[in-house]
């Protein structure tokens, strides 16, 4: 950590200015005020995290103007005795693309999978705090997890088409709801495949196996499947990590096209991807959200030194 600070160019020693910023718990953390963040505080922050102390996150003011689709409130998660998420507080804005970045193992996937409660499938998991999906509690008592998941779509790191035809893959969520009307199914299939920019490639082979597609096509098929039920929020966990640049480009374009219509929460390791295709970015470290704000600000004038170090590739 000290080594890191030594290497920092002097121009970045100046405290970030010009942006109104507020820690979510500024009362407890006086150093959260922008002008008041001197370099040592910044160091203390990572050191404090490493010591396991509570550190509040910096959330840019720009987010206050957004309408939230998902609200994460004081969320904590333990895998057995190991704590993986610490007091997460986040608003995921509606109709925007929000990217989660951070070094490997910092809990991005855990947070994402907590939104649709996919972590419930893992034994030994403990949760404190809550999330809200359009003001409905996600972790409240008596919540029907299955109904809840129907309101979200998810795209995984590794494409996972089902062992069935392309058509059936896309309309899977309608099928499990018992939809039988052929017209509806066909309409949804076409709309979703068009939405996922896959229609032209597969329209003549809808009844072939979904597994017969190429890797990039499979991933877009999974996106089509995820948007078929018109989810309120679309969760994507490193959707491009197994793809070549061209397929990645297609999916990034797709994310651009989908934003506005859908609210997207995307995990990525690719800084360019985050900066190109997201509206907001949250930087996570060791189970905490360190900084969260508009992508442009996070990448060009972040408030935290750690964020800057990370996005410029100096650590992580």
């Amino acid at each position: 950590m000290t080594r890191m600070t030594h290497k920092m160019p002097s121009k970045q020693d100046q405290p970030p200015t010009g942006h109104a910023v507020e820690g979510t718990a500024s009362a407890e953390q006086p150093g959260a005020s922008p002008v008041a963040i001197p370099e040592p505080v910044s160091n203390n922050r990572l050191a404090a995290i490493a010591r396991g102390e509570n550190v509040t996150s910096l959330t840019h003011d720009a987010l206050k103007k957004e309408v939230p689709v998902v609200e994460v409130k004081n969320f904590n998660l333990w895998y057995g005795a190991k704590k993986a998420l610490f007091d997460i507080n986040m608003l995921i804005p509606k109709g925007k693309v929000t990217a989660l970045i951070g070094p490997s193992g910092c809990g991005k996937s855990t947070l994402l999978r907590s939104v649709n409660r996919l972590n419930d499938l893992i034994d030994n998991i403990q949760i404190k705090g809550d999330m809200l999906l359009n003001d409905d509690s996600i972790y409240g008592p008596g919540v029907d997890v299955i109904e809840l998941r129907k309101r979200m779509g998810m795209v995984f790191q590794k494409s996972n088409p089902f062992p069935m035809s392309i058509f059936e893959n896309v309309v899977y969520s309608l099928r499990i709801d018992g939809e039988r009307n052929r017209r509806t199914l066909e309409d949804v299939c076409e709309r979703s495949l068009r939405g996922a920019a896959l229609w032209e490639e597969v329209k003549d082979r809808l009844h072939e196996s979904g597994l017969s597609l190429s890797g990039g096509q499979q991933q877009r098929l999974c996106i089509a499947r995820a948007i078929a039920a018109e989810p309120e929020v679309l969760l994507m966990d490193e959707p491009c990590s197994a793809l070549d640049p061209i397929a990645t480009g297609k999916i990034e374009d797709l994310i651009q096209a989908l934003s506005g219509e859908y609210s997207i929460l995307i995990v990525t390791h690719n800084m360019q991807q985050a900066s190109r295709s997201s509206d907001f970015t949250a930087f996570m470290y060791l189970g905490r959200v360190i900084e969260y704000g508009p992508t442009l600000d996070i990448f060009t004038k972040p408030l935290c030194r750690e964020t800057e170090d990370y996005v410029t590739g100096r650590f992580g």
Partner: protein
Amino acid sequence: MTSTQTKPGAAHNDPTAGPRAGVAIKPPAPSYNRSRSRNKTSLYAHGEPMVWLTGGALAMCLLMIIGLVALIVAQGVATFWPGPVVRYQTLDGVRAGETTRLENYSPEDSVFERLPESSRAAARKMVADNGGVTGRRLVRIGNYEITGEHFAWVSDFEIAPGADAVSTPPWMLVVERLAWGRFYGEPVGVVIEGKLIPCEPAEAWKLFGEHHPAVRERWEQRRRLETGDIGVINHRAEQARLALRAVEMKYGKESPQWRAEHESFLKTEERDKAEFDRIAREIEALNNTNNGYKIVLRTADGTESTLGMADIVRAYPANQLSFAQKSVVYLSRWWEFLTDDPREANSEGGVYPAIFGTVVMTLIMSLLVVPFGVLAALYLREYAKGGILISAVRIAINNLAGVPSIVFGVFGLGFFCYIIGGGIDQLFFSAKLPSPTFGTGGLMWASFTLALLTLPVVIVATEETLAAVPGSMREGSYACGASKWQTIKRIVLPRAMPGIMTGMILAMARGAGEVAPLMLVGAVKLAPELPVNGVFPFFHPERSFMHLGFHIYDLGFQSPNAEAAKPMVFTTTLLLILIIAVLNLAAVFIRARLRRRFSSSQF
């Protein structure tokens, strides 16, 4: 190249080189040596011995399997090929028949005592010259009613001197009969419509050929009447009797209900009696006609015997047949084998009921064991939370596969036949008691028992394939809002289908080849009726049945005519293997189609 390699190596060794530098020793080039030693990969590292070991193991397996199959195929295929009838003039008489086997042996002295006095010395000398060893052949001499034997050994030294002592008389017929085994003899006359016509063999053979098919046709007709029509009448009479008995048990004898039922019972009986008499007369007429057709045969030693044509299944002049005619006999025997009932204590005729029983039982067993095993495996793998109990259950299931199959037979007999079957009889078939309906071995209980026997195979195979369904697919399904059961039904099971089919194939192969438990729960030597026939309700799962595996055991160890049954053991084994292979191939084919659906172009 080497120099560039040395440099980083030396640099790498700087720490060690540092202290040595003071002693002014030029640092060696360790990395150079290292790369040399790496180039020389050992034989073991190349894996050469493992290739030989694994390849050798496979070769051993193949050798044993191919040997066994080749033996069965060679023997099984050859059984039905018609051989020549050889006539041996021996020192003490004549023997004629088909040679089945040759071997060498050292005769004891007592053997020579049985020879006529005059030729003993010559025989002794002949054997002694040959080092005390002599050849002998097993001749199927047939004509059991005359000779009292089916087979006889003829030793080399027994054969009379002279060129024509061993001959193949052109008109020796091989006659396969319904009873008493084969007959070998020359035709010397026929009886047609009751009139004896003595004639030359060729003429007699021609006349036989003209009339035999019609006689056999009448015989078939008679058999149909006996098993079909009379069977229906008997069945109806039995039903009426049971109905009366049921009423009697419910209301008591001489009650008004009983009287009414008795009335109708008598009416049915009367009507059936009339019909029965009509059929009996018909059979009588057919029999009378057939009795007028006979063939007179003279055996090798000159005895004449008259055989009814109706009793003759097949006859052929073995020594005159061309290759094509032999092929016809061969195929007609196979056809009979596959489609006809057995006769002669199973050592002749067909095994159709056993084929039928085996296939039906195997299919019912698969239908029972697959759903049951898959459900059990689903619970174990998908629903149960791991723990000591589940591990214990798993171990128990695996151990179940090691329980001797006869134990399953005993369990099947005690539990299925006696307890459950007995209970069913008490509830639904009480009128028929004390003779059991379900309370004894039968097709259904045999299938249940074998389903139990093969259950571990299916559970273990299914569990493994369920575990192999990628977690990402399940998560994908859950993320779409599917419930657990929807995920299992739509994703897990279809994806696991090929593996489940593998389990089924293994179970079928195991079940179809199993014999021991079947002996206790329903397989019989000779079943009077098939479990499926034209009498309502068409499928009779309570009936005992024939099974190829049990048939093999019966032929091999229970047959009174062991020598004649032996080739049939091979043919039946060959058939059983073929049937299992066909069932398996069918399943493999379906599995391959399923696999193709789920195979991915992605790696």
